[in-house]
């Protein structure tokens, strides 16, 4: 019990700060532009950030467990390329979905096995698979693009979910559902507690009987599957399969997860924080875009928030340590 509150308390402190930041963004955004809080704008927000948001969820669990997965954007790209390639070859769409899902899981499994069985550092491994999977996407599609997808499918990428009043994209809905699932798993199941334990100390977790290798491999496979799903959504949203779909997104995904207060060393973090961080990230980009600020220069704000996410807790720790020293 003590452990739980020890873990949750610092996280909660950061989450509260993050919630304040999100509220600030909402206020500043709507002051800067009357269109900020409109349904249509939120819909567009969901469209542009849905896939990234979805990918942050398994990444959170992976980072909490003490690893990292930089190949997420490449798995997205690879699934997009396969989707286009197979469709152009005339495969039926349901078969393509199954194939792409299997490939995504396999890609994640490769990551997981390299990390757990060969005991290779996940940072280096996933930099390698980042190149490998993007390379496979390039080999599969070459310079070609496939855009002949039928409207029934591309609408999944661009239409609003029925019965929600035209404001919710399918990707947003999927994100909400997945966030609930991942949140429950992480915070309310033994599996979730094991993930925290692994992140805090892999050896101790191993000795405690937790199947570290199996769980980590499972997390990588889940990540692979989810990134494949994101790849399908991305392709339908742009109605184009091309090898550079999603290029460079992995750093955004990691940035959002770190922004959420998830510690890069593992063992700390929460899904609530990730949801808030997604809102903050998307909100900043959108608010600045609506006020004519250069889209990519929004990186400065993202970077500053990222720094705050590590410095503020560090300052807090320092203060607590000093307090503990002077008031034993």
């Amino acid at each position, binding site marked *: 019990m003590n452990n739980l509150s020890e873990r949750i308390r610092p996280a909660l402190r950061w989450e509260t700060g993050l919630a304040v930041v999100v509220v600030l963004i909402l206020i500043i955004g709507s002051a800067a532009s009357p269109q900020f809080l409109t349904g249509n704008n939120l819909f567009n927000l969901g469209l542009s950030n849905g896939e990234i948001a979805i990918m942050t969820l398994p990444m959170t669990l992976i980072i909490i467990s*003490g*690893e*990292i997965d*930089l190949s997420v954007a490449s798995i997205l790209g690879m699934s997009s390329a396969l989707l286009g390639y197979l469709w152009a070859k005339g495969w039926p769409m349901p078969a393509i979905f199954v194939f792409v899902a299997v490939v995504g899981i396999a890609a994640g499994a490769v990551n997981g096995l*390299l*990390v*757990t069985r*060969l*005991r*290779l*550092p*996940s*940072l*280096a*491994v996933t*930099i*390698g*698979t*980042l*190149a*490998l*999977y*993007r*390379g*496979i996407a*390039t*080999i599969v599609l*070459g*310079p070609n693009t496939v855009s002949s997808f039928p409207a029934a499918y591309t609408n999944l990428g661009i239409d609003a979910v029925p019965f929600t009043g035209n404001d919710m994209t399918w990707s947003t809905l999927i994100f909400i559902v997945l966030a609930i699932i991942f949140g429950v798993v992480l915070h309310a199941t033994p599996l979730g507690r094991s993930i925290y334990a692994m*992140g*805090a*100390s*892999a*050896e101790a977790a191993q000795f405690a009987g937790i199947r570290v290798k199996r769980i980590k491999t499972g997390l990588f496979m889940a990540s692979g599957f989810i990134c494949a799903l994101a790849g399908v959504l991305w392709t339908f949203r742009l109605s184009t399969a091309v090898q550079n779909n999603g*290029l*460079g997104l992995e*750093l955004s995904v*990691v*940035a959002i997860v*770190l922004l959420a207060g998830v510690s*890069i*060393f*593992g063992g700390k973090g929460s899904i609530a924080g990730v949801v808030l961080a997604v809102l903050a990230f998307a909100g900043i980009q959108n608010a600045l875009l609506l006020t004519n600020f*250069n889209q*990519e*220069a*929004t*990186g*400065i*704000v*993202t*970077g*500053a928030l*990222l*720094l705050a*996410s*590590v*410095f503020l807790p*560090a300052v807090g720790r320092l203060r607590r340590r000093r307090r503990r020293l002077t008031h034993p």
Partner: protein
Amino acid sequence: MSAATQTTGSEQQAGRARDAGLAERVFRIRESGILVVLVLFVAVTTAVRPRFLDASNIQFVLVDTATFALLALGQTMVVIARHVDLSVGSVVGLSAYLSASLFKDHPGISIPVVFLAGLGIGLACGIANGMMVAVGRVPSLVVTLATLYIIRGIDILIVGGNEVDASSLPDSFINISKDTVAGIPVLAIAVAVVIAIGAYYLRTYRSGRDLYAIGSNPDAARLAGLKVGRRVFTAFAVSGAIAGVAGVLWSSQYPTINSTAGTGYELQVVSAVVVGGVAIFGGSGTATGAALGALLLTTINSALYVLGISSFWDQAIWGFLLLVAIALDQTITERLTSALRSRKPRSTRPGATRPGLTSPQSSTGSSTGTRHE
């Protein structure tokens, strides 16, 4: 008592020296391993297409490798200390544009001044990184990811929609990346010299070797009295300065500069460093190895073109090679570690501690530190 201690002491010292020798030998082997792969690769490609070794091809490869290897040197220093510098791509971009616009806005400015300016810009960024990581004691992955974004954002703000094109740059500057001496590009020679200096420094100077200790076990290093903060700060500052100079070279090689220069380059640099045998968790690897890694990757790139294999295979091969290199390094490290552990000096008293060796005890697998068997 004292006699026994003395014998144990000198035997321990001898044991230490033997083990250090073994570690040195293994890492020489690892470096030569890359060299062997490189030579084999070149040999096979040349056998199929003799023009691979044409002067012009060699020049292409060497010039492309030069900037790459330079950045790999800076990154090596940081990675050996168990850190990472993801901001190098953005620093290169900022430095490239600012130095190019110096030429544009101040025609006739001397080239060394521009190099100094680039170095200064990079140094400033490196100092910022170093301060945050060393003084703030926060994870370098997060810090440099943040500065990657911030520096790129500053670059975009400064550049806006502009660009500097080749006609604004003096010919003598652009020729830096084209001039050759006896068929070898001047740039490659200069970078090779810098890397040799860097490698020598890392091997010989205490501040260099300290980086290995810090990378192997930061807490132990701190307890042993090493100035961890200062060393890490210096490593980041140097990495930044190198990236600044690399940015100036970039604008010589690619004389049309806009706000996208250097985007995404950081992961390629880390790949070269890992292929070159530098363990991502620090404590081992050499600058020479990293430079060879950069050379190997560029050579493969070129070989694909020459062999007429679609360049679309390039990235997949790159990724595969990276995985092989990581797996190989891991195996070597584990074998070496167990070989060293199994060598017990004859008269070890139970409980006598063997002084820790600085090289091969890098952590394996998870990011949470060394595993004790």
